[in-house]
């Protein structure tokens, strides 16, 4: 089926999310929609899927103009969508999720369970998905949940499949599998709109690339285009994709974590025997697929959750150079912050800031109990404003004034405020979780620079990230987490595939062996071809 979008415009108040967008997706084509977070890709697809109503423009399927009042209409017309945040009911089975909304029934409105299972099995078998129709969705890993979403779309005879940032939650291996599924679907005649901001994936699988910036189509490219070319189109200026830094061996140990465990009352282990050290002037990054205990680990380290076993120790040097240890195990957040730990939470807007407060207030919110920002129990607004103006300048926070509401800033600038607040204190240990999630490319460069500067100033830095690029770019050492455990700690030049296998729980040396074998067989095969 051929899809055509003509002059689509969508406004939210004064903000133009989509400005006169044209897009043509030919039948059986993988069309990549490339753009930064907030460029308007998802808005466009939500318009196409009938979730938003466009303020202007036309949707044509096989040259027939369509009107979608809701997702039901879009689905009936043959459009399926796999949302970034899965639209699956966790307590339902796979089969129930797949048939929801178009249930096969028998008798008085009862669901025909065996027919529902058959629908799942049939599609699952055709594409080799290996999905159990009877499994509860909440019990499945995200990679499989995504396949359930694809089955859901295909079971409705989707001819056009929209994949919204499908690789954000996947390991590199799962990503590869998804790519091959996309190729299979394409071979079966399905058109795919692939929304992403990851250049590598686009080059890997797309037939045509459309780049969107600030709600406008800024260009089309062939998959043969170079990464820097695509990045330039996406950001609007030349971007240096590499992080400039020298590797550090690090100094003495600054943060020592031993046998840390967190077990829920139900017996479920969220963290299990985690042991590692972070040295002074060193960045340790923690890689892993979302939901493998990274959040819990940072929250235990900062005192938001109490561990059930193990210890966290801070090591500093006194004037004479002797090591002074402070036990931070299950201390209050206040104590931990005061002993020289900085923390950038994963969910910035929920845990890192107060949207209704001004930028200046957000910049001092952890320091208002004592001078210079408060005296005799009342705030010193002049000192707070002055500090705000200085930090806005220093951290290149794009706002007219430090008195502006925090909520009015873009994601990248909000993150800079959080970062400025944490880094303005004298830190021994700096912990940042997903420091560049939802942040524009320009701010990413800046934030990475600040993190490295903090390391160079002597802090021990712990970064949690699910973006493999970020992990390898920043790390002096990389730890990989899987199901609440450390799979291993490896050097930053470790092969992506090895990291990918480790993210799936395979130990470092084993992962290394596996990738060696693979490349060896690849080599043998290609040599064989050569000889022919």
């Amino acid at each position, binding site marked *: 089926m051929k899809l055509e979008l003509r002059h689509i415009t969508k406004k939210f108040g004064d903000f133009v999310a989509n400005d006169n967008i044209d897009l043509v997706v030919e039948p059986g084509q993988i069309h990549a929609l490339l753009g930064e977070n907030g460029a308007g890709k998802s808005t466009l697809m939500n318009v196409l*899927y009938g*979730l938003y109503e466009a303020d202007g423009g036309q949707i044509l399927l096989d040259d027939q103009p369509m009107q979608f009042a*809701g*997702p*039901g*209409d879009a*689905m*009936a017309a043959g459009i399926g*969508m796999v*949302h970034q945040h*899965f*639209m*699956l*009911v*966790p*307590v*339902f089975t796979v089969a*129930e*999720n797949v*048939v*929801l*909304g*178009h*249930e096969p*029934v028998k008798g*008085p*409105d*009862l*669901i025909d*369970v065996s027919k529902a299972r058959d629908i799942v099995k049939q599609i699952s078998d055709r594409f080799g998905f290996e999905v159990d129709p009877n499994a509860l969705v909440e*019990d499945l890993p995200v990679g499989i949940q995504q396949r359930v979403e694809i089955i*859901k779309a295909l079971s409705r005879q989707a001819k056009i499949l929209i994949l919204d940032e499908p690789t954000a939650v996947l390991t590199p291996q799962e990503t590869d599998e998804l790519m091959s599924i996309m190729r299979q679907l394409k071979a079966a005649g399905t058109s795919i709109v692939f929304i992403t901001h990851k250049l590598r994936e686009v080059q890997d699988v797309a037939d045509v690339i459309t780049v969107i910036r600030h709600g406008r189509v800024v260009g089309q490219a062939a998959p043969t285009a170079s990464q820097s070319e695509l990045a330039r189109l996406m950001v609007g200026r030349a971007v240096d994709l590499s992080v400039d830094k020298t590797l550090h061996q690090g100094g003495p140990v600054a943060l020592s974590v031993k046998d840390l465990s967190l*077990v829920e*009352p*139900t*017996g*479920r*282990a969220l963290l*299990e025997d985690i042991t590692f050290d972070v040295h002074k002037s060193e960045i340790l990054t923690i890689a892993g697929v979302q939901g493998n205990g990274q959040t819990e680990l940072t929250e235990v380290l900062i005192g938001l959750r109490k561990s*059930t076993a193990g210890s966290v120790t801070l090591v500093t040097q006194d004037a004479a150079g002797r090591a002074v240890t402070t036990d931070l195990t299950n201390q209050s957040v206040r104590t931990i912050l005061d002993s020289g730990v900085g923390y950038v939470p994963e969910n910035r807007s929920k845990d890192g800031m107060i949207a209704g407060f001004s930028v200046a207030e957000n910049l001092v919110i952890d320091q208002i109990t004592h001078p210079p920002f408060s005296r005799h129990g009342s705030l010193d607004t002049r000192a707070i404003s002055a500090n705000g103006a200085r930090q806005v300048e220093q951290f290149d926070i794009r706002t007219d004034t430090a008195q502006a509401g925090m909520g009015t800033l873009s994601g990248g600038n909000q993150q800079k405020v959080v970062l400025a607040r944490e880094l303005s204190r004298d830190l021994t240990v700096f912990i940042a979780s997903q420091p560049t999630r939802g942040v524009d490319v320009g701010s990413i460069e800046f934030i990475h620079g600040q993190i490295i500067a903090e390391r160079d100033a002597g802090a021990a830095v712990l970064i949690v990230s699910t973006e493999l690029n970020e992990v390898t770019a920043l790390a002096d050492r990389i730890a990989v987490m899987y*199901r*609440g455990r450390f799979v291993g700690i490896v050097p930053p030049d470790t092969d992506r595939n090895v990291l990918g296998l480790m993210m799936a729980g395979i130990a470092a040396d084993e992962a290394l062996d596996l990738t060696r074998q693979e490349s060896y067989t690849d080599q043998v095969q290609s040599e064989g071809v050569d000889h022919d």
Partner: protein
Amino acid sequence: MTTINESVSNAEAARRAKPDQGSPQIDHEFAGLAPRSWKAPIIFTVLTLAGAVVFCLTVDPGSISKVSVRTGTPGIGDVLWSLPSLITLTVMTVIMVAMTAWAWRQAIVRHHITTWYGVGFGLIFVAAFLVWAVSGEDSALQVTALLSGALFLSVPLIFGAMAGAVCEHVGVINVSIEGQLLGGAFLGAVVGSLTQNAWIGLLAAPVAGALVGCLLALFAVRYWVDHIIVGVVLNVLVTGLTNYLFSTVLTANSDVFSIPFALPVVRIPLLADIPVIGTVLFNQSCLVYIMYAVVILLQIMMFHSRWGLRMRACGEHPRAADTVGIKVNRTRVLNTILGGAIAGLGGAFFTLATGLAFGKEMSAGRGYIALAAMILGGWKPKGALLAALLFGFADNLQNALGVVGIGVPSQFMLMAPYLVTILAVAGIVGTVRAPAQEGTAYKG
């Protein structure tokens, strides 16, 4: 004992067969390190000690506890047991001690005891309490009457709990069950009186509940008002409205509006002949039979029908429902009204099933107890039914013991079963999950 042990070992076998149930991410060898839960064994110990001290030590050693069971079956006579109080209580205490010891063992090896184990323990405790309460009295404890009365009194609770379950599964918290019951009682009685026909009154009762449900849906779904606040306000509204109409219209024209009509009590042939159970279950008001049908229907339809799947999707993940073309807010409104109608039907209990005229605030807080029963029952019709029966039993205990005429003040008598209930909730019910998006507005 054997059945309890069997059920425990069955549950264990089931757990072994499916080790990952509920928490698939645990490695099984690590699951043993779950923090020990001492709640159940401590509660058991307290109750057992109470049983041993209060029951065994205060009972007159020579006294007799008389228990009468009416079989209700033609050809089989009624049974009257005269149990030696002290020996019976001692045996029961020994059983409780054994069960407590087992609970401690389970806690030490980090296993959870099953709900049924707790229920079994609770039953033995209640039985011991009854034996103790009637010891030395002349009249016998009428077990059959106790049970059938308990079932009858739990009818409004069950209807209310069903209403709560329907509403919460679709994502709306229904605190206005109380008002819906009261509205149903009022309209059922008035229409029954006007038409001189209890059946027509029974048709009117759900209409009143549905109207309250309409208001709840209007404010909670359409205008995003906090569900609990709307619910409480609606309760006050219905109470005020019915009080006003009662004082002005009903009392002034009681020969028109307040003639009591009752639904017939029907003895179902054959089924009612089953000893004891038949009398308890199948010799009841018609409303009780309607209640059976509603519970069975809801239990099946909520979890196996298209209606149930779509409705629960709206309560669990409304956006997912929306993206497959289900109209979330329409589904919520309709099912909230349906829930209201079910509660309204239950309200008919107070007037049409008991054969009384409408009286001020005659639902007396049972809507809130229904809500508690629904939560205790894990948001499922089946569980809510059992929980409501427990509350109904507590309600009726005072009546049954009042007939026997025991020395303990009836207020204290009433407390004991509630105490057991609270302990049961705290100790036995684990983490039951509510529908994920209940009480939230879906703004599309």
